[in-house]
């Protein structure tokens, strides 16, 4: 019942009493519409019965993409006005369609409401809680209902543009797309050696053999796959409004996982932070879905517990794996863990997700000083990484992931040249 009903009944009663007291029929006329509205409203009052179903255009979509949603309303007992609100998370913006909307539903009528939403941020959502509010003809009675018809929707992070991937220093035993150091069956030329019984004729280098008067054989580098572990630092994040260092980190993780899996590598995923999650390295499209689903569960959980690399199961970090660490370098525990990893002989690369663009401008002399100290501390941290032989690439707003990866490749090439 809305406040309108007692108000109208009260008005009618007062006017009628006044009419009696003053013996003026005009007041009966004034009372009449209110009394009639209240009486008719009471007579025609009934409980509406409206059901709703929701249909999603897709169960999985990419960040930034648009998605169609359809809400079907079926009224066994309709109402003059039905307000429909489809509850949507903040990250889904309605670009087409009215939400909430007020419509009329006659008895037995079925209506379809179409919405188009833009998925502005990655994440796992459940969509389909529908709020219904019905009003009768006179607006005297109101019924509210919540229908839970939620369906899962997974919004995956969008991909970054990457041309060349980092080549792992070591390869594994299975065939893949990386040129291994070891010699074996492959395409890439490695060396020449004299013929020995058992060598295949098609490996004979006829030009070298003609020049030397004996048979020489071409040797090739084997083509192998590699183990790649993407280590996501989830100890801390820098956040400003809707922007966070976690978002580019996840986009990079998704892109790198997809690209490495496409070239037959085994890819593992570790979320190293307040909550530790891991996926053992594996190959194929299924693994990509596993990784992306694990990424959707990633959240920054504040924790003060000390956590080092020993907490990560051994099988998650296979020997000779290339470990790509995506970190904003905001927590000492991640720094210690990365140095520990390098100390254990892993081929480690740090991609620093720069939090600088998310920081407010320092205010006052003390603020400027604190900002300088903080930046110096970060520089010192990068210095420690470089001294340990860990390449660090900074990925910020000004650069792309491709540039950051290219920096690392250049660093590794130079480091190899120096060590040779």
């Amino acid at each position, binding site marked *: 019942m809305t406040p309108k009903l*007692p*108000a109208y009944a009260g008005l009618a*009663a007062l006017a*009628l009493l006044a009419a009696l007291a003053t013996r003026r029929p005009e007041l*009966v*006329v*004034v009372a*009449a*519409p209110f009394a009639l509205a209240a009486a008719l409203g009471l007579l025609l009052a009934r409980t509406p019965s409206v059901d709703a179903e929701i249909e999603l255009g897709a169960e999985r979509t990419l960040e930034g993409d648009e998605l169609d949603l359809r809400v079907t309303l079926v009224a066994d007992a309709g109402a*003059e006005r039905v307000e429909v609100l489809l509850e949507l998370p903040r990250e889904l913006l309605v670009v087409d369609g009215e939400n909430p909307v007020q419509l009329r539903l006659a008895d037995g009528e079925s209506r379809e409401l179409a919405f188009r939403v833009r998925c502005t941020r990655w994440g796992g959502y459940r969509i389909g809680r529908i709020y219904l509010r019905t009003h009768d003809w006179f607006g005297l009675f109101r019924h509210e209902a919540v229908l839970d018809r939620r369906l899962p929707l997974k919004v995956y992070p969008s991909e970054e543009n990457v041309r060349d991937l980092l080549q792992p220093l070591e390869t594994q035993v299975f065939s893949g797309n990386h040129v291994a150091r070891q010699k074996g069956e492959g395409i890439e030329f490695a060396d020449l050696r004299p013929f020995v019984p058992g060598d295949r004729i098609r490996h004979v280098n006829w030009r070298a053999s003609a020049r030397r008067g004996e048979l020489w054989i071409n040797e090739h580098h084997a083509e192998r796959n590699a183990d790649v572990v993407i280590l996501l630092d989830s100890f801390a994040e820098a956040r400003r409004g809707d922007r966070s260092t976690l978002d580019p980190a996840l986009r990079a993780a998704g892109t790198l996982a997809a690209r490495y899996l496409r070239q037959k590598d085994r890819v593992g995923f570790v979320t190293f932070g307040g909550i530790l999650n891991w996926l053992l390295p594996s190959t194929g499209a299924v693994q990509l879905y596993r990784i992306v689903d694990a990424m959707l569960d990633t959240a920054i959980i504040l924790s003060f517990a000390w956590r080092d690399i020993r907490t990560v199961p051994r099988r998650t970090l296979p020997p000779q794996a290339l470990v790509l660490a995506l970190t904003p370098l905001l927590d000492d525990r991640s720094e210690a863990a990365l140095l520990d990893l390098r100390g254990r002989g892993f081929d480690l690369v740090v991609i620093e997700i720069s939090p600088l663009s998310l920081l407010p401008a320092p205010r006052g002399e003390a603020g400027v000083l604190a900002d300088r100290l903080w930046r110096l501390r970060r520089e010192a941290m990068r210095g420690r990484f470089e001294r340990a032989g860990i390449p660090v690439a900074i990925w910020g707003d000004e650069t792309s992931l491709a540039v950051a990866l290219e920096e690392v490749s250049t660093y590794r090439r130079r480091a190899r040249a120096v060590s040779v």
Partner: protein
Amino acid sequence: MVASDRLSVIPLGVGVAGCALMALALVSRWRSVFPVGIIGVGASYAVYLGVQNGAVDGAAPAVAAALFAASELGFWSLERSPSRSEATVLLRRVGALAGGALVTALVGSLVLVLTTGASGGVGLEAAGVAAAVLAIAAIARLASRPSV
């Protein structure tokens, strides 16, 4: 003449107070005050009739229709619904409001014709008392219902 002028100020004052209350309720979205404002405006009309103390006011149906339309519009604006109405719903609602005002005017005219034609008496008095009692009973019944 002077006394009559003074008396005519009373309904004006009551009406202005009623309108001010309605305006306050609409501006501050104070729902419970709005009916009080309507009562104020209605009371001003009652006082005006008392002051006039003359023949039946022929404008009563128009006053009733205006008061009804004003209260409907006021309650509409107090609904605070964020949802956008479809054109059909909006048209039907506006049509219902206009129809309600028209019916009020017509029924009011009919009531006036009937009451001015009747010579009064115990029967009419009894009908009036019964209507008032019924209205109060309806209020009591409504008050006992849980609100949504």
